[in-house]
C-alpha cells in the first residue's frame, strides 16, 4: 500500500544540522576566526562585500564562514541581511583623485604625474606554489618603504587627456534628477541610464563580467580599449545629513577603479576622440574593475551610434543576467519538485506519440 512521504519539517531541520557539521569539518582542527578570514582571505572578503553591496568586512567574513567558503552563497547571505537595513540616503560621489593610493598603473603612458606605483599585485609573481606557506608560522619579510611618500592628489589619466580635448568630457548625470535610482529598491525600467547600469555592473557577478569583457576583446563588440589607469587605494565616503546641511566623512573604504580609454571613430556631430569605460568596485579587485569598464563601454555603443549586435552591448541581456544571486537561485530552483507540470508534459507527449504512431500505421 502506497503511503505519501511525510515529515518535511524534520527533514529540513536534520539537513540544517548536517550542514552545520559539514561546515565545521574535523573538530580536531581549530575553528577559523572571522579575523583570520578578514586578514588572510581578504580578497574573498572584498568580493563578497562588492557583490553583496555592503561594505562590512566583519559581516562579509561571517558570511564566508557560514557559507563554507562558497562566495556566491556568502554574497546571498550578506544581501539578505542588507535588505533589512534602513536606508538613510545617498552619499556624495567619491573623489578618487583624492584617494590614498596603494597602487596605480597606466598602460597608456610610460610615466605620468604622480608616477606609476606597482603596489601589492599578483601581476609579476611567478605562479609557483610556495611550499614554505604550507608550513604555518613564518612571517613574511617586511616590504621596504619608499624614500618619498606618494602624492596626496593624483590626477586621473583620463583627465590629463581632457586638457587637449582628446577625450570626451565626463558629464555627470542630470544634477536636477536628484538621487540616482537604487536598483536594490526600485524595479529597473529598461532602457537604463548609465548610472543605473553601473550599479548593476558593480553588483554583477565577476565571472560573468569577465567573460563578457573578454568577448569584446575577441571581436564580439570590439571597442579598442586601453587601460588608461587602474588605481587602488582608500577613498573617503562623505554624506550630507539633512539636519546638518554639509558633508561629513563617514568612512574610508578601499576601492579599485579602472578607466578604460577607447578610440571612437567620430560621428557627424563629434570628431574622432577617445571615450571612456569605467569600473569601480569595493576592495582590491582589478579583474572585476577592468571587466566592468570594458562592459560599461560596450553598453554605450547605442549612445555613440555604434553597431549593437554583440551580447556585451545589449543592456537587457547583460543587466538581466549579471546578478549571481538571481541566477543561482533560478538555476537551482530546478531542484524543486516540478512533477505536476511534468505530469502535464507526460500526457501531452504520450498523446503526440500515439497520434504519430497511428499515422505511421495508417500509411
Amino acid at each position, binding site marked *: 500500500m502506497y503511503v505519501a512521504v511525510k515529515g518535511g519539517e524534520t527533514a529540513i531541520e536534520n539537513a540544517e544540522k548536517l550542514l552545520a557539521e559539514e561546515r565545521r569539518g574535523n573538530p580536531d582542527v581549530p575553528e577559523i576566526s572571522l579575523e583570520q578570514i578578514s586578514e588572510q582571505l581578504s580578497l574573498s572578503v572584498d568580493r563578497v562585500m562588492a557583490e553583496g553591496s555592503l561594505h562590512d568586512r566583519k559581516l562579509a567574513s561571517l558570511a564566508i564562514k557560514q557559507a563554507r567558503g562558497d562566495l556566491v552563497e556568502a554574497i546571498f547571505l550578506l544581501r539578505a541581511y542588507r535588505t*533589512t537595513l534602513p536606508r538613510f540616503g545617498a552619499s556624495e560621489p567619491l573623489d578618487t583623485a583624492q584617494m590614498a593610493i596603494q597602487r596605480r598603473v597606466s598602460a597608456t603612458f610610460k610615466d605620468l604625474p604622480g608616477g606609476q606605483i606597482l603596489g601589492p599585485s599578483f601581476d609579476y609573481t611567478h605562479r609557483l606554489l610556495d611550499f614554505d606557506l604550507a608550513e604555518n608560522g613564518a612571517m613574511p619579510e617586511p616590504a621596504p618603504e619608499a624614500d618619498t611618500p606618494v602624492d596626496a592628489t593624483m590626477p586621473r589619466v583620463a583627465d590629463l587627456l581632457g586638457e587637449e580635448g582628446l577625450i570626451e568630457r565626463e558629464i555627470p548625470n542630470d544634477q536636477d534628477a536628484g538621487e540616482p535610482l537604487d536598483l536594490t*529598491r526600485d524595479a529597473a*525600467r529598461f532602457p537604463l541610464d548609465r548610472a543605473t547600469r553601473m550599479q548593476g555592473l558593480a553588483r554583477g557577478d565577476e565571472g560573468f563580467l569577465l567573460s563578457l569583457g573578454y568577448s569584446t576583446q575577441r571581436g564580439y563588440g570590439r571597442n579598442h580599449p586601453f587601460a588608461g589607469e587602474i588605481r587602488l587605494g582608500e577613498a573617503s565616503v562623505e554624506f550630507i545629513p539633512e539636519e546638518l546641511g554639509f558633508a561629513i566623512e563617514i568612512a574610508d573604504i578601499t576601492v579599485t577603479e579602472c578607466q578604460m580609454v577607447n578610440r571612437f571613430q567620430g560621428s557627424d556631430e563629434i570628431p574622432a576622440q577617445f571615450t571612456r569605460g569605467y569600473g569601480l568596485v569595493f576592495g582590491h579587485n582589478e579583474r572585476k574593475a577592468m571587466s566592468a569598464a570594458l562592459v560599461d563601454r560596450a553598453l554605450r555603443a547605442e549612445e555613440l551610434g555604434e553597431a549593437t549586435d554583440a551580447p556585451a552591448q545589449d543592456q537587457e541581456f547583460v543587466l538581466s543576467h549579471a546578478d549571481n544571486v*538571481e541566477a543561482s537561485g533560478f538555476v537551482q530552483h530546478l531542484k524543486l*519538485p516540478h512533477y505536476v507540470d511534468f505530469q502535464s508534459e507526460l500526457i501531452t507527449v504520450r*498523446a503526440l506519440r500515439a497520434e504519430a504512431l497511428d499515422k505511421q500505421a495508417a500509411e
Partner: protein
Amino acid sequence: MNATGYNFAYLDEQTKRMIRRAILKAVAIPGYQVPFGGREMPLPYGWGTGGIQVTASIIGADDVLKVIDQGADDTTNAVNIRRFFAKTAGVTTTEHTTDATIIQTRHRIPEVLLSAHQTIVYQVPTPEPLRWIEPREAETRKMHALTEYGIMHVGLYEDIARFGRVTTSYNYPVRVNARYVMSPSPIPKFDNPKMDQMDALQLFGAGREKRVYAIPPHTSVESLDFEDHPFQIETWEERCALCDADDSFLDEVITDDAGTRMHVCSDSDYCRDRQEAGHVGDGGPE
C-alpha cells in the same frame, strides 16, 4: 535564522507600503504586471520570493495560512515557507483549504472552489507570457500597451499546424478581462478554468523579475484558443488510488523498478478529505 529583531512578517513597513500600493494598482488593472521594488529575501530567487513578499504584505495576525507546492502541503518547499511565516508572523497555519484565509501556492490551484473570504497568492517564476516569443522587456511592454498579441496566436497556431494541437501543457497563457494576456504561473492547464470568475482574489508575485499582478474576484479569465481548436484540459482514464476521485489532477507515482504506476491526487488535502468521508480507491498495485 533567529526571527527576533525582525518586523512582523519579516518585511519592514516601508517595503510593505510599496508592495501594498503595487498590489492595489494590480487589482485595478487586472492582468497587468506592476513593477515593484522587490527585496532580497532570505530564501533563494526562484523558490517563492515573490509569493512570500506578497503574502508578507497582506498577512495579518488573524489570518490562517496554507502553503502548497505541487498541490501538497508536505513538500519541503511548502513546509519551508510555512515555517518561515509561522516564525516571522506567528500566524496560524493549516493544511485544510477551507480553513485558510490566505493560500500561497506553487504550481497548483486547490480542487475545492475557493470562496470570497480567501486570497490565493501564486509564486511566479516568469511573469511575462510573451517572454518566449520576445525576450526583451522594452518590447513586450509595448506589445501589452498596444494589445499586440497576434504573435502569441501565431505561435500557438504553429503548434496546431505542426502537431494538430496546442502542445503547451502548463503555464498556458490566459486573457484577463478581455484585455491583458497573462501568465497563470506554471500551473497545469487543468487548473486554468478555475481562474475564471473565481470568488477569491488572486494575487501573483514574481520576486526575481520584480512584478506583481492580480485578478479581482468575478473576472473573466480565458485560455487562449481557436474556434477550430478549443482549449482542452488534461483527462485521465485512471482514478485516484487512495480516494477514488475522478475529477482531480492526478500525479503518476512509480511504485517499483519495473515501472509499475499508480495515480494519486496532487491535492493532498482534497484526497485526505475524501478518504475521511469514506471514499476508498483501489489502493494501487500490490
